[in-house]
């Protein structure tokens, strides 16, 4: 399988199964529309006749031989032979947990998938005992995995920060005994971040996600406080303080959501950058199409164009020798994750689970509150192994649309929760997400390929 596209003045050719990326001229781009396997010794006469109006016969033949050569080298039209690996993670240990430390929030974001913080189940904070049981569950279920990830999530984790501290201390106290290393992350809206919390986060958290949507008017339209006022003025100084004090070797992101109201979201990315935030993730809201802020198919042309604009803006910054990182344009074309990792994405319900304040276990934070996806409870000592197996078996070869998609080894079957919520089944691709994802990937591949080409020349 191949995928080719034109972007940024370049023709990019991706060989899906080898991961090969090629920059090609117009002749190759056109010729690939007119040849197919099996290849012969000479370019098919029909292709030559069709293209000879634009290109010389000798060039067409030479180009054909280059295509055949790359095919013989197995970096063009290479075979998909990964399906045999797809069953290897069925008995996978659990290595990551989203800990819902607070089902309460001090914001009332209008697009909140968690029903403004309580996930539809009433406002509640996790107590230490429940968190401790969650950490124990992870330790017991993690097999030979050394790095264990715990994300303090909400609602808003800063509303229950004493328990966050206690749980970090508890988990650290178990590291040596179990031969594990915890990697904590926290996702916060920044409203009540104190210096004490910032210092703790910067000391203990491997990654921190700071929620902000961008420009003041954009952020304050959706991310409102309980009294209806915007949060921007409150959170900016807190986020700046955290980032200024953060050790340089620790990860962090400002993370925004764009909606139908700001389809010009490249301006929000640039606004965050100009504020001094150079680690940025901004991504589309996922919402019921009836919501006024929801992104729909009709918005896609504008969104696609905006990602191109964003890639140009980011490239301009980099051309000036400055640093900016946009999460969804990050891609490593040589040393990225292995093919086996790429078969099933985030690992929700299999390698990754969420735990709620009352000890319920779900495949991930997005499934919380959907009763049929409740996997168990820490107090009852239950855990649905069959459901774990079902999630383990949800990979790109059991998702029909993914199996034939060029992007399958980059998005790895997409978000199971989005698939279920918006497409009815974890195996059904959520097409809106797919289309946006594919455009982001094209931009990311193009930017990286051009950079690698320039480095090589």
């Amino acid at each position, binding site marked *: 399988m191949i995928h080719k596209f034109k972007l940024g003045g370049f023709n990019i050719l991706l060989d899906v199964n*080898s991961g090969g990326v090629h920059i090609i001229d117009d002749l190759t781009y056109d010729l690939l529309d007119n040849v197919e396997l099996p290849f012969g010794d000479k370019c098919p006469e029909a292709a030559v006749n069709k293209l000879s109006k634009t290109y010389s016969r000798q060039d067409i033949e030479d180009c054909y031989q280059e295509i055949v050569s790359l095919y013989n080298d197995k970096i063009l039209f290479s075979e998909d032979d990964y399906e045999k690996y797809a069953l290897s993670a069925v008995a996978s240990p659990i290595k990551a947990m989203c800990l819902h430390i607070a089902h309460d929030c001090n914001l009332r974001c209008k697009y909140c998938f968690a029903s403004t913080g309580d996930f539809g189940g009433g406002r509640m904070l996790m107590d230490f005992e429940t968190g401790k049981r969650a950490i124990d569950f992870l330790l017991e279920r993690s097999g030979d995995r050394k790095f264990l990830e715990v994300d303090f999530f909400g609602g808003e984790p800063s509303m229950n920060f004493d328990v966050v501290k206690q749980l970090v201390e508890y988990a650290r106290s178990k590291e040596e005994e179990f031969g594990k290393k915890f990697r904590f992350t926290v996702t916060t809206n920044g409203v009540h971040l104190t210096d004490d919390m910032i210092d703790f986060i910067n000391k203990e958290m491997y990654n921190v996600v700071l929620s902000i949507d961008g420009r003041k008017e954009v952020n304050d339209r959706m991310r409102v406080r309980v009294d209806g006022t915007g949060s921007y003025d409150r959170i900016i100084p807190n986020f700046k303080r955290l980032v200024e004090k953060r050790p340089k070797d620790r990860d962090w992101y400002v993370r925004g959501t764009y909606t139908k109201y700001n389809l010009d979201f490249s301006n929000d990315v640039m606004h965050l950058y100009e504020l001094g935030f150079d680690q940025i993730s901004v991504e589309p809201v996922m919402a019921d199409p009836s919501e006024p802020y929801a992104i729909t198919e009709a918005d896609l042309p504008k969104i696609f164009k905006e990602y191109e604009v964003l890639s140009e803006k980011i490239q301009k910054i980099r051309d000036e020798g400055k640093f900016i990182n946009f999460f*969804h344009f990050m*891609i490593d074309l040589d040393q990225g994750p292995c093919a086996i990792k790429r078969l099933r994405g985030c690992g929700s319900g299999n390698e990754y689970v969420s735990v709620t304040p009352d000890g319920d276990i779900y495949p991930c934070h997005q499934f919380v509150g959907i009763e049929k996806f409740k996997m168990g409870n820490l107090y009852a000592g239950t855990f649905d192994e069959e459901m774990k197996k079902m999630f383990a078996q949800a990979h790109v070869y059991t998702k029909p649309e993914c199996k034939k998609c060029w992007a399958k080894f980059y998005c790895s079957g997409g978000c199971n929760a989005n698939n279920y919520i918006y497409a009815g089944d974890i195996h059904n691709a959520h097409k809106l997400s797919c289309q946006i994802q594919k455009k982001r990937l094209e931009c990311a591949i193009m930017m990286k*390929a051009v950079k690698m080409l320039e480095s090589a020349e």
Partner: protein
Amino acid sequence: MKHIKTINKANLKKTAAKGGCGKCQASCQSACKTSCTVANQKCEREA
């Protein structure tokens, strides 16, 4: 080559042979939480 410039090592197949150790980050834990992007994750296999 005159018409085609290969940019990378195209080594996805090699990664399958030694892959699957599971030491890498769960992709949703990094900075998205509402979507899935795997190709930007780092391989953490110790050589």
